[in-house]
């Protein structure tokens, strides 16, 4: 059994209520932090823990906190990014609806560390019922004196606000989220200035993922060093993985970073292997925006080492033979999945979600979708493949925010690893457009 930090008490009945959560040792971190530690000591523990941003970028959270500007007389804000909308990722959703108090407790500790007196949880607009759960949890915590004025008699005030988003994927990008939170159109901002200097309402702001913040209570209770002891190398702690696709047991799993991909994929404790009678074809390891991997690069890296569920191991080999841990959206494909159709589906998503502010992403995502649509529907030509590679290259790195990269990577990697499948779609339009037809090298599955 792996060490559980976030989902330790997930199975306890009534854990969503304050009383049960408190009985399981909840809110002790708030007591410990506010009564016995200074804010800087809390930041220090976060730094020691080495916990990295769980939203996808993997930037060390303690270091991010360290960058926060602290000018006199200017309020500071903590914003929790709960706008989880990446296809294949549903861990924050599960965490918030199951143990809402864990996030609330984490928010109190983190806000205290950063000196924020008003903090926000920006929740994806579609998750209305989760917003209700969070608001109830906040009410309960307030009634028990863990939120509001003079928390636990320590003189620290904190107001926690849950803000529903409008349902745009782009608002998961931190500066677009801040714009949206300010009541404006959710367009990402140009950086610099970074939010740590000028964020929400032009004040220093930290934006953290739900899962990152939910780690804080455990880190305070057990110490940053104890947290850093879990995991492997610079991938410390545990990670929630949203497993989906053609596996026997899809769901949210908490794993210790450093678990082998093979074990996660095939052991009965986790995914339970590929669904009956089928075999592995491809894997998207960290949500739809990371590069897709073909079967032979999933459990082993290009150099023949075991691939592990960690930031470093998954990105081993760069984008040529590796991918990213990203947000932990683990999407498994068996041989019945058509890569061209899947790539088109992803491209369609990014086209739909591009904010339209900067030209490469606004025009490029739509272009890629149209070309992929053509190939998928039997109207492609051979030069379309190189066209896609070139368009992806011209979007990547040239946009204001990472949505451009996120749109370009899946397309570029699918062509890199499954070029023959794209070519088959173009040379055999009749076969390829049969419902459910999938190219399998020497045969066709219909």
């Amino acid at each position, binding site marked *: 059994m792996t060490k559980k930090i976030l989902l330790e008490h997930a199975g306890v009945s009534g854990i969503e209520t304050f009383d049960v959560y408190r009985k399981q040792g909840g809110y002790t971190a708030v007591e410990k932090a506010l009564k016995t530690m200074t804010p800087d000591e809390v930041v220090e523990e976060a730094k020691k823990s080495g916990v990295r941003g769980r939203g996808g970028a993997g930037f060390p959270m303690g270091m991010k906190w360290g960058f926060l500007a602290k000018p006199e007389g200017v309020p500071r804000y903590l914003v929790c990014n709960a706008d989880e909308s990446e296809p294949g990722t549903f861990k924050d959703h599960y965490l918030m609806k199951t143990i809402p108090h864990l996030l609330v407790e984490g928010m109190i500790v983190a806000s205290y560390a950063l000196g924020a007196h008003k903090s926000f949880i920006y929740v994806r607009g579609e998750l209305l019922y989760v917003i209700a759960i969070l608001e109830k949890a906040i009410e309960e915590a307030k009634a028990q004196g863990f939120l509001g004025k003079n928390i636990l008699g320590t003189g620290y005030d904190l107001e926690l606000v849950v803000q529903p988003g409008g349902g*745009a994927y*782009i608002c998961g990008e931190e500066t677009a989220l801040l714009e949206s939170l300010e009541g404006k*159109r959710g367009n990402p901002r*140009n950086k610099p200035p970074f939010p740590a200097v000028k964020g929400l309402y032009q004040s220093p702001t930290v934006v953290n993922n739900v899962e990152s913040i939910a780690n804080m209570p455990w880190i305070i209770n057990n110490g940053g060093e104890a947290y850093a002891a879990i995991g492997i190398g610079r991938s410390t702690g545990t990670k929630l993985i949203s497993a989906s696709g053609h596996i026997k047991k899809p769901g949210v799993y908490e794993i210790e970073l450093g678990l082998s991909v093979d074990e996660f994929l095939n052991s009965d404790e986790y995914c339970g292997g590929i669904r009956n009678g089928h075999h592995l074809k491809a894997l998207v390891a960290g949500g739809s925006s990371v590069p897709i991997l073909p079967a032979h690069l999933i459990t082993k890296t290009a150099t023949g080492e075991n691939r592990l569920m960690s930031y470093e191991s998954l990105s081993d080999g760069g984008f040529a033979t590796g991918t990213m841990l990203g947000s932990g959206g683990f999407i498994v494909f068996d041989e019945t999945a058509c890569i061209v159709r899947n790539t088109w589906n992803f491209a369609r998503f990014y*086209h*739909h*979600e*591009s*904010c*339209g*502010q*900067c*030209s*490469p992403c*606004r*025009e*490029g*995502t*739509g*272009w890629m979708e*149209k*070309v992929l649509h*053509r190939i998928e529907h039997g109207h492609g030509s051979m030069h379309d493949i190189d*066209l896609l590679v070139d*368009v992806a290259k*011209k*979007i990547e*790195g*040239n*946009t*204001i925010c990472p949505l451009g990269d996120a749109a370009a990577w899946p397309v570029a990697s699918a062509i890199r690893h499954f070029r023959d499948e794209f070519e088959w779609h173009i040379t055999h339009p009749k076969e390829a457009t049969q419902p459910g037809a999938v190219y399998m090298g020497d045969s066709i599955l219909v």
Partner: protein
Amino acid sequence: MEDTKPNVVKITFDGIEVEVEAGTTIMQAARRIAEADGTQAHLVPPAMCYYKPLEGTGGKCRACLVKVAQGSAKDTRPMPKLVPSCITQVQDGMVVENTTNPAVLEARKGVVEFLLINHPLDCPICDQAGECHLQDFAFEHGAAQTRYEEERRTFEKHDIGPYIQLHMTRCILCYRCVYTADQITNQRVHGVLNRGDAAEISTYIEKAIDNDFSGNVIDVCPVGALTDKTYRFKNRVWFTKPVDAHRDCPTCKGEVTLWCRGEEVIRVTARKNQWGEVQDFICNTCRFDQKKTSDWVIEGPTKVQRSSVISANKYRADLVKKPDFALKLASSQYKAIDDSRPYVTDPDTIRQQSVENNDKANHRSLLAENN
């Protein structure tokens, strides 16, 4: 010594060193180089969305991306990605590559292509042709052919108010008109609706843009998306003659450019500088209602850049300094004709030489085919 002042920084732009105040953007530093030496104007990164007089513009079109090969004297690492030069501030010792970096030119070519895939390529019937920034940008940095085979995005034309027509099909979403309405007029009633490539400039409820300075959105529009209804389709811009003029206006500074055909004023716009930016925004009365020469005090012909089609056929040849590059080129390429071969008059020899030459030519073309 100037260098010892902490507020002056030195940067290298395409191999040219320039000193500017701290806080200047790379774009402004490049423009400084071009203003000091007109022959370097081609080094300045193109700007489709950035508009210096409007605060907050820039960073959107990605046309001005440059490579920062060295971040500063202290931190000599290059920046990992191309950066938008219009909003990136210079650091002391920064080394910037624009036209000298193939990756920059490639990315820029990409931006032209992206901006054009949904833009109608019908310059011959567009009112902006001849003074269109996108036209210039595509001409200077783009490819001659498109790789886009799909249907283009189109919109209906909308009249927004009695003077302005919006044709979204041509829009490149630079947001300049939005910033103009925010910063120049006292109320903004239009904005960007929807997202992605479905985004459009709109007044949402078909409201008229109606205030004293609304006409300025026409001047800031880099393409033919926002056009002057009092001028639309009256003339091509290169058939009109721009003259600077002013009047005593109670609302604005009253300094404008009149676009004339003979004695007739067919259009009034604000004055633009070398970078196509309006310095003094003008009011709607000046722009739309004062269309008689008698309304204005004429100052003289507007300076138009030689490269612009607007200057075509406007100025007498004897008044314009001839470019000396052609003469220089000619003198550098000049070679005396080699006339040392013997002069042949005998018809038989001529015939024989002709046959030999023919054989040689055949032999050469055979070789070329085989290779």
